[in-house]
């Protein structure tokens, strides 16, 4: 006798696999993020940077403008500031002011432009990274 599986059983099992897969994948990325931040605290920049202070381009977003300045000393980024950080209205300013310190600490830890954007401040984060990339390019030159 052939066993006819119910359509529902097959689809239910597929959904189960998708859910378990998603949770597993999310937990795996969670693991990576936490280990990468903990091990990279002493990381060296992946490229050689010349000592000095470099200012990136001023990047405009619908929330406001962002400009990043980095300080390179002994080949390492020792500080980052945002000479330009405006919010187009009150709420954006607040978000930007929350996001900037987080981005700064990520930058100092990773010593690279590959930093995670801050959730809730995606636009600001992307602008920050873009400006930072320009500052990096100048530091390499």
């Amino acid at each position, binding site marked *: 006798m052939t066993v*006819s*599986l*119910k*359509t*529902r*059983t097959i*689809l*239910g099992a*597929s*959904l189960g696999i*998708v*859910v378990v897969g*998603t*949770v597993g994948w*999310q*937990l795996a*990325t*969670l693991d990576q*993020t*936490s280990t990468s931040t903990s091990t990279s605290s002493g990381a060296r920049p992946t490229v050689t940077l010349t000592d000095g202070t470099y200012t990136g381009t001023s990047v405009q977003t*619908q*929330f406001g403008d962002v400009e990043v300045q980095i300080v390179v000393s002994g080949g390492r980024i020792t500080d980052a500031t945002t000479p330009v950080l405006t919010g*187009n*209205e*009150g*709420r*954006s300013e*607040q*978000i930007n002011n*929350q996001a900037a310190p*987080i981005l700064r600490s990520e930058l100092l830890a990773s010593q690279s432009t590959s930093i*995670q*954007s*801050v*959730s*809730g*401040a*995606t*636009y600001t984060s992307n602008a920050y990274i873009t400006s930072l990339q320009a500052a990096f390019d100048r530091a390499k030159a």
Partner: protein
Amino acid sequence: MAARYEITYRRRALASNLLVGLVWASGLIAVILFFTSAGTSPFGTIGASVSSIGILCGLVGSDFILVMIVLAARVPFIDRTIGHDRAVAVHRSLGKPALYLLLAHATLLLTGYGIEQGLNPIAELGPMLATPNVWLALIGLLLLVTVVVTSLVAVKRRFSYEGWHLIHLLSYVAVAFAIPHQLTLGGMLATGSLQRVYWITLYVVALGSIATFRFIEPVVSSLRHGIRVREVESVAPGVVSLHLAGRDLRALGSAGGQFFVWRFWTKSTWWHSHPLSLSAVPTDDSARITLRDLGAGTGRLSALPTGTVVSVEGPYGLFTPAARTSAKLAIIAAGIGITPARALLEQSVLRPGEATVLLRASDADDSVLWSEVDALANAKGATLYTMTGPRSPSAPLWMPAPDAERGVTLRSVFPDLLESDLYLCGPAAWLELVEADARDLGMPQHQIHSERFDW
């Protein structure tokens, strides 16, 4: 036997309580995760505190909306444990709280941000709406208000099922419109946080269940079984049996008096869905449903041409032996309500004397399939009673006047009523009378299993 039903009942009751507990726990998890992921002092200032409470309202509200979607998705596991009726009841009970929480979310954030900026909540409305994606979320909220208002009992009555259902589908749009502001403004999806794992999982479970069981399954199942109308047989005035042909129909997997949602694809009938039980256990290539001309939609079914394509969703419901809790079985079916009752009897494994069946018809034309139930009752050693005639004007109101006058009661038909599972199927108004009668005799709610002809 009795002990076995008792154990399965206890197990199901426990699973049911766990599931309902899980609903509330999920709201709590959303709150806890907010505190683990919230950055610098969420309750540092008055403005920040108001905003944080606003965010919490939004989180719990969203959580409830997603849980509601899961509950309405007809997930087989949920339907089996708590039953679709109960799942929909919990879904309904969450509707208003979820909406109030989301309204509070909007109001509290306007107030909280306002305090931080030195603006009153109304003045804060401008800057708030200037923030990208907030206006999308606002549209989502307004859609949700529409969905909840049209589901209030008084308002719902004014709509046809199809109209109401169409409006209800807007809740998916509302959920979709709320997502962008959760990404750009909220912290719940911040990369690398436990909060993100939780919310992504919840979204995948909710939207995945809806997509799988409400959209994909009916399509796949309909294509797989390729059901068509083979013959329309007139059984009695206004009652027809539809004989269906298809492939692999046993795999439809209906247990007892479960129902399917049918759609008949002709120009005039496709938009109307019909929740109907199979009126006989299907074979591999044939199945049968029996129905009465109830509404305008059902009336057209007696004229269905042979070869009409039929799509199917289901099986749904707990009108099955799996829902048994007690040693004896009592079945009362009225009119066309006999179809699930017949299927339940056909699929039940019974000791002689275990089951008693009472069939109710308003006139002789209403006594559909009685001969078939009679044959089944004989074969299974069940006692069969019948009552024909219009409803009695004096108590018990659900039986015909002559029977009521003779002093027949629920207790006299079913002497072991309190040790029985009472399965009821018939028109809603009649059914409520029987239920009330059974409850007055001290019958616990979990022993009463009803299948109503309404939505």
